[in-house]
């Protein structure tokens, strides 16, 4: 007896995207630092790792990461506009524009992959 229909609207999905992207980025940060740490410990290990990152699957994962970063950034800007300036107008349009920007940024990254 727990209806969930109340969640199916743009702002709820924007909230989920912001929360999930934030969590995934937080999980990524230790991995990122671990890789950076390789540069101090062993240049050959780092080079080996970097050549692995050139595989298509990793590039795809990188693109996802860029989309997550852009989505989290635009989501954060939207929330700050709401909270600091009380922006009321075009609130759902802001969700759409933010998501659109995130996808365009991801696509731009993907198109520049060699």
């Amino acid at each position, binding site marked *: *007896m727990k*209806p*969930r*229909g*109340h969640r199916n*609207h743009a702002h*709820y999905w924007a909230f989920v995207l912001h929360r999930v992207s934030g969590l995934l980025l937080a999980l990524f940060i230790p991995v990122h630092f671990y890789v950076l740490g390789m540069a101090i410990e062993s240049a050959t290990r780092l080079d080996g790792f970097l050549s692995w990152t050139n595989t298509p699957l990793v590039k795809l994962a990188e693109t996802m990461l860029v989309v997550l970063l852009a989505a989290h950034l635009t989501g954060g800007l939207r929330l700050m506009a709401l*909270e*600091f300036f*009380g922006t009321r107008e075009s609130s759902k349009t802001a969700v759409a524009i933010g998501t659109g920007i995130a996808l365009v940024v991801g696509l731009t990254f993907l198109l520049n992959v060699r």
Partner: protein
Amino acid sequence: MSNTIKVSVWRGQTEGAFEDFEVPRQPSQTVLDVITYIQRNIDPTLSYRFACRVGVCGSCAMTVNGRPRWTCRTHVDKVATDGTLQVSPLRNLEVVKDLACDMTEFFNKMNRAEGKFHPTKSRDDDFDMVLPDDPKRKQASQGIECIGCGVCYAACDVVEWNKDYLGPAALNRAWTLVNDVRDGGNAERIAAVSGDGGCHACHSQQGCVEHCPKHISPTHSIAGLKRAVAKSALKGIFGGDD
């Protein structure tokens, strides 16, 4: 339009089950009309709450096909797209019986948020001048049409997750009073809305805005409270006049 509509209605309290009814369709029929038909013609033991039937009193809110709505102004045509209705009590409130919820906690939270007027003048004083285009008056106007139906409270996930959360309606009420120049209770109010269950618990999911039948935006009222609390905290640290 089919001649009848299939309606599943919640029976019981927290534990219970849906019971199916078949109700004749009428033009311009509201969900409240359907529930009233069942109670008057099929099963007089069905419990639900209503008063004005015209969207003023805020008594008849229920969950209709998964979403909280004011049933007296919700047309069956608009919500029963597949020809069926499922009606249950509002989320996040104790069920008294069937479709009637206990609203005590909802209204107690309005008090806890200092959602009451603190007068500053006596009958011997002159009136306060509140001009229609005053920025504070405009802020208050955007929230004062609340009818206390509890739809926003039922649509809010934070209310479900945090039992102490004051909820969209109570915080919206507090914000209208923050903007009332005649009120003298802002120090208490700011303290009341800045705790664990206060305005900062809001995640801006805007379920309240999406569902409010009066098209109020409690999210923006809560954002206003967050700014008011921040301003008050900064004043506490650095001092300064209003």
